[in-house]
């Protein structure tokens, strides 16, 4: 195939937008897995739960799904806090070392969420049509769909705000500290369990916002989250564990790699190229492209 400039430019932009959305999905995992060392395998299922609840608010009250996602955020934050307390009591208390059982715990949550969604909403595909879903905007030769542009903008914005909060606020610095040395933090008079609970709640806040974005990008069904499990963990590892900027850039690298491969080599090669990049990173830079 001839590589035209238009095609190349569109492929790069498509990849960046896709990467922005992937970053929103991975942000919570970057916090829970990268910073708190909690393998929340149910995170994508929580994204789908967020997508369904956003859909429901849109169906019942006509609320824009993205706004619905932010409205649901505080509720998810509290639920995340409670889940972490339970996780801590059962698996972390007394020195931890029970990560396999913890993993099974989150697998259980994944299945419970899927079953709740099936019982509550059925198994049909759900989606939200907004006024901007099928519209596009052109910048010269580049055409961009609003359903990808809006999640991109919100995702980058959310990530920058969280990154700022982690660097500049007491809570953020406490989360960073708990990831490095919880005992030292305790000696400073801060309750690491409380801090980790808040941080885990924040990761679920990002899950519901990611779900709200997902429902305008594509239709979802209860088990749709399983398709994203590998992707979100790969992005977090690629960008560097717990490095939020790395998560954003890692997501964009995978997005652009996927888009370029789909355009010029054949879309079925896209996962091979993406995960090939991950393997190369693990071999030559195990701490991730942008480090911890």
């Amino acid at each position, binding site marked *: 195939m001839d590589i035209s400039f238009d*095609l190349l430019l*569109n492929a790069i932009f498509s990849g960046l937008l896709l990467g922005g959305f992937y970053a929103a999905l991975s942000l919570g995992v970057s916090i829970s897995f990268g910073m708190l060392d909690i393998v929340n395998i149910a995170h994508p299922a929580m994204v789908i739960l967020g997508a369904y609840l956003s859909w429901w608010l849109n169906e019942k009250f006509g609320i824009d799904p993205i706004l619905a996602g932010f409205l649901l955020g505080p509720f998810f934050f509290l639920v995340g806090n409670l889940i972490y307390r339970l996780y801590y009591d059962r698996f972390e208390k007394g020195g931890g070392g029970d990560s396999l059982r913890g993993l099974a715990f989150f697998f259980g949550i994944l299945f419970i969420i899927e079953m709740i969604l099936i019982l509550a909403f059925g*198994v049909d*595909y759900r989606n939200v049509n907004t006024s901007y879903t099928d519209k596009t905007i052109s910048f010269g030769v580049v055409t961009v769909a609003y359903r990808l542009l809006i999640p991109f903008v919100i995702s980058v914005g959310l990530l920058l705000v969280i990154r700022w909060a982690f660097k500049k606020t007491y809570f953020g610095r406490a989360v960073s500290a708990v990831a490095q040395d919880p005992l030292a933090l305790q000696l400073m008079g801060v309750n690491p369990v409380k801090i980790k609970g808040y941080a885990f709640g924040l990761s679920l806040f990002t899950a519901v916002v990611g779900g709200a974005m997902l429902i305008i*990008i*594509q239709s979802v069904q209860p088990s749709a989250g399983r398709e994203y499990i590998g992707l979100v963990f790969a992005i977090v590892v690629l960008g560097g564990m717990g490095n939020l900027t790395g998560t954003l850039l890692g997501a964009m690298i995978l997005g652009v790699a996927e888009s370029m491969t789909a355009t010029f080599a054949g*879309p079925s090669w896209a996962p091979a190229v993406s995960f090939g990049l991950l393997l190369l990173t693990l071999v030559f830079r195990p701490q991730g492209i942008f480090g911890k």
Partner: protein
Amino acid sequence: MLHGNFRRSLLIASLAIMGAVGFGSVSAQEKPPLRIGFGMAETGAMAANGKAAKLAMEIWREDINAKGGLLGRKVEFVTYDDQTNPSLVPGIYTKLIESDKVDLVVSGYGTNLIAPAMPTIMQRNLTFVSLFGTAVNQKFNYPRYFQVMPNGEDPAVGLTYGFFEAAMQASPKPTTVALVGGDAEYPALALEGARINAKKMGLKIVYDKTYPPNTTDYAPVIRAIQATNPDVVFVASYPPDTVGMIRAANEVGLKTKVFGGGMIGLGFAAVKKQLGPLLNGVVGFELYVPEPTIKFPGVEAFLKKYQGRAEKEGVDPLGFYLPPYGYAMMEVLGTAIEKVGSLDQGKLADYMHKNTFKTVVGDITFANNGEWKVGRPLYVQYKGVQGNDIDQFRKPGKAPIMFPKDLKSGELRTPYEEARKQ
């Protein structure tokens, strides 16, 4: 004495009559139920269709039991959720046959979940009626396999033939085609058939690639296709990618004469609702549409029953795609049992091979390989779809049939970039 004899005789006669009537009725009541077992995708990626199919099969069971059951026995179902997971299927069928000791088994929904059941079924020489398996028997060549989906004797070719016949109605005739589909079993088969059909029609293949099923953005795929400037774009997809490809075609502004293909999902109410006017111009695959040329006896009554329960069950509210065929599959099995008068697996298979079945999806005659002798997938072109209300699809006119010719109810509009604006 005479009086005493008479009384004794009367007593004996009464007991005899009571015995005959009483024991007879007890015996009828105690006839064990006829148990039919199957796995069905009630969770997982194919659950939306699996649950709709199960509801249709339940409606058949209620209908047949209201008529007195089969062979004088009430029909019961023994079912398990296969979770859309092919690896669970052999275990489910082994359990149904060996542990639950069901009288008969039928398949769950879809190629990926039918094929894994085949070795278990074949080892026991069971007659197996299946629902929407594409070319499953191509490799097994099992003589007691029967499939209910109107693909025709050569499923891969028959499934997509109609699309190419419809596309060739364009004027001037197309000369090039782009083929694209998901990396999964059904799209692979559909693409295989599409290549054969494209060659038959004299179309030059200018793009022939697949994409991973969990692709999020299809715009790069559509742009790559556009770069090859094909007259026809054929897509073989499952519901999520069907939506993604149509959306991307609209966003990119795909310029081609005919766009569509074997896109599963277009028959689902949820996909119709989601896409709304984006469907206009697409030449897609349907199995039932309420067009005036298509009248299967009993289908409307069935759909009325189904639609009355669909919302409560949380399944496809229109039920045009799979449910009538789920009901028809059970009609085939039920008719064969009634006509044969037993559950002899060999006799049931013989009967199915030799006879035509009247069902809610029309007459079904099986070829030697268990597929329909004559295929009949409907290729329609969506027109005049406005807004996202699914009720508009309950009436004729929104999906006129382009193929087969005997059911044709509209003319093809080209090129796609113009047709999609109407």
